[in-house]
């Protein structure tokens, strides 16, 4: 498997046929800096989470096999806990980690896999193209084994679901 060659085209869109979210962004900053703000908690707490959210607590062991654990607080004050494990880190181009929300009783929910790739862009690498891949299924090969049927299925489903 590989990231779809059309990944850039579907930037910002969910791909329901294989339940993978792909987002691409060109950031106005060199790649080393972008990598840095993903890799250190004091930077991460400044931007991680939707608008108005804060990260009162964030612990991370930034190496393959290392765990991270964060507490995210919504503007209304609701707290959400999440944790994950770094799967692969290649400085300064790739970070891959699992992501699971923890419910109020402390039970982990469904595990997903996030892969962030950073490529130099712009004049003299002044920019960075970030591609974020968030997969519902961890096993990409299993997912792709029946890719065609799945795509057709969702085409029909898309039409069906809108009538529900």
């Amino acid at each position: 498997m590989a990231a779809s060659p059309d990944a850039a085209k579907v930037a910002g869109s969910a791909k329901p046929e294989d339940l993978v979210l792909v987002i691409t962004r060109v950031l106005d900053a060199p790649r080393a800096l972008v990598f840095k703000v993903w890799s250190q908690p004091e930077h991460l707490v400044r931007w991680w989470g939707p608008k108005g959210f804060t990260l009162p607590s964030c612990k991370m062991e930034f190496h393959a096999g290392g765990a991270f654990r964060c507490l995210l607080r919504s503007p209304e004050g609701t707290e959400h806990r999440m944790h994950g494990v770094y799967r692969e880190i290649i400085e300064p181009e790739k970070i891959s980690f699992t992501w699971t929300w923890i419910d109020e009783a402390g039970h982990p929910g469904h595990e997903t896999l996030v892969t962030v790739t950073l490529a130099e862009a712009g004049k003299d690498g002044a920019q960075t193209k970030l591609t974020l891949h968030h997969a519902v299924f961890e096993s990409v090969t299993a997912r792709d084994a029946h890719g065609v049927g799945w795509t057709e299925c969702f085409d029909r489903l898309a039409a069906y679901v809108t009538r529900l």
Partner: protein
Amino acid sequence: MSADPLSQTFAALADPTRRAILARLCSGEATVSELAEPFDMSLPAVSKHLKVLERAGLVARSREAQWRPCRLDAAPLKDAAGWLERYRQFWEQSLDRLQDYLDELQMKKTKEKEGDDHGRKS
């Protein structure tokens, strides 16, 4: 494993055979033996997969009549799509904030550098 409906949906979807069964049911109702046909699998093995799909509410089957065909129920899939949409919003907004933060960091750096240049020029 957690028993919340969404986790059940994803657990059910996390198997290629089960996804293929769903894909087949998208084109209409089918009996268990019809569903088993494309797979190198026994009927009991296919029934086992169907039970997982049933528990997740993705497939409906009449209990009284074994020969009655299976059909797809797409409602849990709609929830799954909504779940993905929430992640999309999470990331889009995080990346907006990331750019703002990067601007802030670089502004600081430029100012420091300008300070140095100014010192050298005068």
